[in-house]
């Protein structure tokens, strides 16, 4: 079984009624409703290879959740095709459900009134997992997520961090090859976030699971993902590695050098501009589309000038993605 995800020309359109302003407008809408089509996802194509973690990014309302809902079999697309581990999710929902695990950060799939361990046992029966296998996996998850400290507590009494850790375990108890995570760490404190990230990294690197992750947390993307897909207004804007995205949108590095001789005649270098010059302190930055990477610039500055101190400031992923979002809005 190919445990990857294939998405080809996926579109999903919702039809809504336009609400006209005011009381008269509301009456007019009632008598003569104006229907408009909202393209939540529009001609989106991408692949996720088996064992890869792909971050699906985009601003709120970009179409990320709708895409995940189609891939998990919750929604049917208006057009296009999708296969998850070789199964068309919206045509064979129950078969697809056996191949996937899913965590939606803002809602639980556990039984609200039952202790967590009881929910796990019910899921074991639903997915028909052999008892020994279930116990071994539960122990493994307990080691990674420290579940046993609260798994006899009812779900309704859990903290958010405990609840999401339980949901993560619940989503993986049947050993699915593909996992969907929709903002899994939203609202968590940094310690639990880190624990969850470690768990996810382990699931990808050691267990070879394919993961599609949506998040607004760029630290999470940086720590977990090598490739991202950016969508906006339902359209795919960018599909590439983090390095590529940095190269495209993140060329905002600065090299700060302290020259040995404050009277040195300073000039730019190929693709490198002098941004500030104050005595021995010089700040270099990228110049034009063919600007070198920050490491190449560092090397060039050291080779050209005699320096007593040097530091680099690189735009973090948050800045890079902000630039990418702005670019996506512009096209």
């Amino acid at each position, binding site marked *: 079984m190919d445990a990857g995800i294939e998405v080809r020309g996926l579109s999903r359109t*919702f039809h809504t009624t336009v609400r006209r302003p005011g009381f008269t407008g509301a009456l007019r809408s009632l008598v003569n409703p104006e229907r408009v089509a909202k393209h939540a996802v529009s001609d989106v194509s991408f692949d996720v290879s088996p064992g890869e973690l792909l971050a699906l990014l985009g601003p709120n309302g970009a179409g990320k959740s709708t895409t995940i809902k189609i891939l*998990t079999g919750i929604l*049917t697309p208006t057009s296009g095709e999708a296969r998850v581990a070789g199964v068309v999710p919206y045509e064979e929902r129950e078969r697809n459900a056996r191949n996937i695990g899913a965590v939606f950060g*803002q*809602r639980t799939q556990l*039984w609200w009134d039952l202790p967590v361990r009881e929910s796990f046992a019910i899921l074991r*029966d*639903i997915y028909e997992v052999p008892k020994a296998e279930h116990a071994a996996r539960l122990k493994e998850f307990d080691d990674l997520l420290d579940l046993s400290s609260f798994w006899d507590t009812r779900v309704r009494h859990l903290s958010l961090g405990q609840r999401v850790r339980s949901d993560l375990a619940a989503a993986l108890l049947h050993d699915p090859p593909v996992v969907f995570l929709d903002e899994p760490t939203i609202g968590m404190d940094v310690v639990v976030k880190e624990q969850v990230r470690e768990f996810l990294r382990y699931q990808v690197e050691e267990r070879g699971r394919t993961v599609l992750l949506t998040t607004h947390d760029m630290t999470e993307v940086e720590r977990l993902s090598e490739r991202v897909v950016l969508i906006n207004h339902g359209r795919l804007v960018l599909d590439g590695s983090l390095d590529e995205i940095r190269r495209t949108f993140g060329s905002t590095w600065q090299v700060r050098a302290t020259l040995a001789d404050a009277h040195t005649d300073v000039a730019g270098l190929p693709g490198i501009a002098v941004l500030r010059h104050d005595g021995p302190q010089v700040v270099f930055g990228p110049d034009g589309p063919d600007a070198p990477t920050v490491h190449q610039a560092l090397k060039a500055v050291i080779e050209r000038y005699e320096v007593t101190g040097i530091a680099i400031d690189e735009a973090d992923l948050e800045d890079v993605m902000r630039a990418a979002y702005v670019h996506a809005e512009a096209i």
Partner: protein
Amino acid sequence: MNAVRIAWRVTRLNFRAQLEYRTEFLLMIAIGAIWQVSVIVFATVLLTRFTGMGGWDSSEVLLIPATRMLAHGLFVLVLGRVHLVGRQIQEGKIDTYLLRPMPVHRQVQLAFFPTNAIGDLTVAVGLMAGALSRSNLDWTPGRISYLIAAILGGMLLEAALFTGVASACLRFPAADYWGRWLEELLGTFGSYPLNVLPKAVGGFLTYGLPLAFVAYFPAAILTGHGHDTGVPYWLAALSPLLGVLAYLGARLLWRWSLRHYTGVNG
């Protein structure tokens, strides 16, 4: 077999979970019983102030609310969670159910244990015991079997109506309000021999909203009023079967609606 085992296990656990919140548990039973206060008042007034209604004597009339209440109590116990589908859509629970390799309808029913059904059924059993003890009918095995079939048919008919509303909710969540209207209507008119109502209302409650098939027609057949219902005798007699057919139809509608589910928030 696995499906039955899971259903039993979840129901058992849900019931145990409800038991652990003692006050909440008792309150829910009380609410279930108090909710039926209008039926209890109706039965009391009927027995103490009237000798009969629409050509039926009081003990015969009492069989109508008793049958309807028992059918309703069983519906609440076995299939009643379908009534909450609108809320489950808003809370995103249907999305969660769609992620599991289990029919969504079954998961809706296993969401929690309906403690209020214990109150409903307590009132219903009391009412049925009262109706049977006052009845002058000869309760032959055939009559008893028909009564049981009528109760089960009534349960399925009520389930069919609410499954229809739930199916509409899957596409238009605002349809949830129709469920409340339906519940109100069933409670208001379910206890009367419908021949006391104006013809148009009786017609609507037969062919529009088939409330007459839940308890009125079966009670008419049992008490010998089957030829005075305004519909062919065979149609009134087939009420239990119509319940089964209506439920099967409603489940097909549910499946179709689920395929067109759009959820909330995109």
